[in-house]
């Protein structure tokens, strides 16, 4: 089976079968991330569609894995959606369908580290959209501060302060699970 980079190359040559394989491989993960970032299923679906539509336009430079590239596109799209709604004055926030109520906590306080299994959307629901983005890019995709700054279009110092605040909020919120 082709690796992701080969699939992206084939997609660039119009190979629809390669596109279907890439969607099959990463669609579920991207939807999970999109839902954690927005808290809204309809938005998450739209964002996944837009992310893969971005794949059809090309632009992969091979600096990171294809999955990380996809997540970076997704995170940028979430930012664009938020700004667009802000300009339009639409009050449909990206906190979605009730945030924490939308997902279940499947761990008990006292279970530590890897044993504690929480729903990502639940964990991120209390954070601002900017803080969710840095958590996803750093904790799930392992981007460096510089890479995160490039994806988000903000200075490195901003990335660091957002990351610290986001972690502090999570640490406080889930203290019983740590």
């Amino acid at each position, binding site marked *: 089976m082709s690796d992701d980079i080969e699939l992206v190359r084939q997609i660039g040559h*119009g190979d*629809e079968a390669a*596109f*279907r394989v890439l*969607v*099959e491989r990463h*669609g*579920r*993960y991207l*939807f*999970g*991330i999109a*839902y*954690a970032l927005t808290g809204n*299923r309809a938005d*998450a*679906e739209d964002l*996944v*569609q837009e992310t*893969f*539509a971005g794949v*059809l336009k090309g632009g992969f430079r091979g600096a990171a894995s294809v999955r990380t590239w996809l997540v970076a596109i997704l995170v940028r799209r979430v930012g664009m959606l938020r700004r667009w709604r802000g300009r339009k004055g639409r009050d449909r926030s990206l906190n979605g369908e009730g945030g924490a109520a*939308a*997902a279940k906590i*499947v761990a008990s306080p006292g279970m*530590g*580290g*890897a044993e*504690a*299994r*929480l*729903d*990502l*959307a639940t*964990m991120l629901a209390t954070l601002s959209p900017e803080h969710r983005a840095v*958590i996803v890019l*750093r*904790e*799930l995709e392992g981007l*460096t*501060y510089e890479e995160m700054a490039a994806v988000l279009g903000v200075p490195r110092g901003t990335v*660091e302060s957002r*990351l*610290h605040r986001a*972690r502090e909020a*999570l*640490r406080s919120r*889930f203290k019983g*699970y*740590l």
Partner: protein
Amino acid sequence: MSCGNIADVHRYHDGELSPAEREAFEAHLRGCHECGGLLADLRRLSAMIAGADLAPLPADVLSRVQELPQKTGEQAILRIAGWLTAAAAAVLVGALLGRPIDGTEGNGRPAVWQTVAVMSPVEVQPEAGSDPVLVAQWMADELSVSEKR
């Protein structure tokens, strides 16, 4: 936290310190329980996030996304067709606007398109259009016929 090295705890956890900075921070870490406690929490937090469950994908979403290339292709064709239609409409409107309202060429004579439109098929002689001599002959014949009438 009262220790002033909080930022370095995060940087250390994220692998963002240079080798020299890392060495210096590890020396600090051995004597600072606050930084040690924060670092332990950050490690557990990272493990929790990495192991967190993701929302399940609705059943039909994948297939809809997989159809994107066809949809994109169809939209591109429709878009090109739309552009061509608009361009053709613009040319037609431009041509009509460029003509006098009474349908003449501005010199009182009927416009060429009107002349062609009222000519009978018999009067249109395609072979005459290709040779100036034949055109002249055809015009002379027509004039003589008109005079006889």
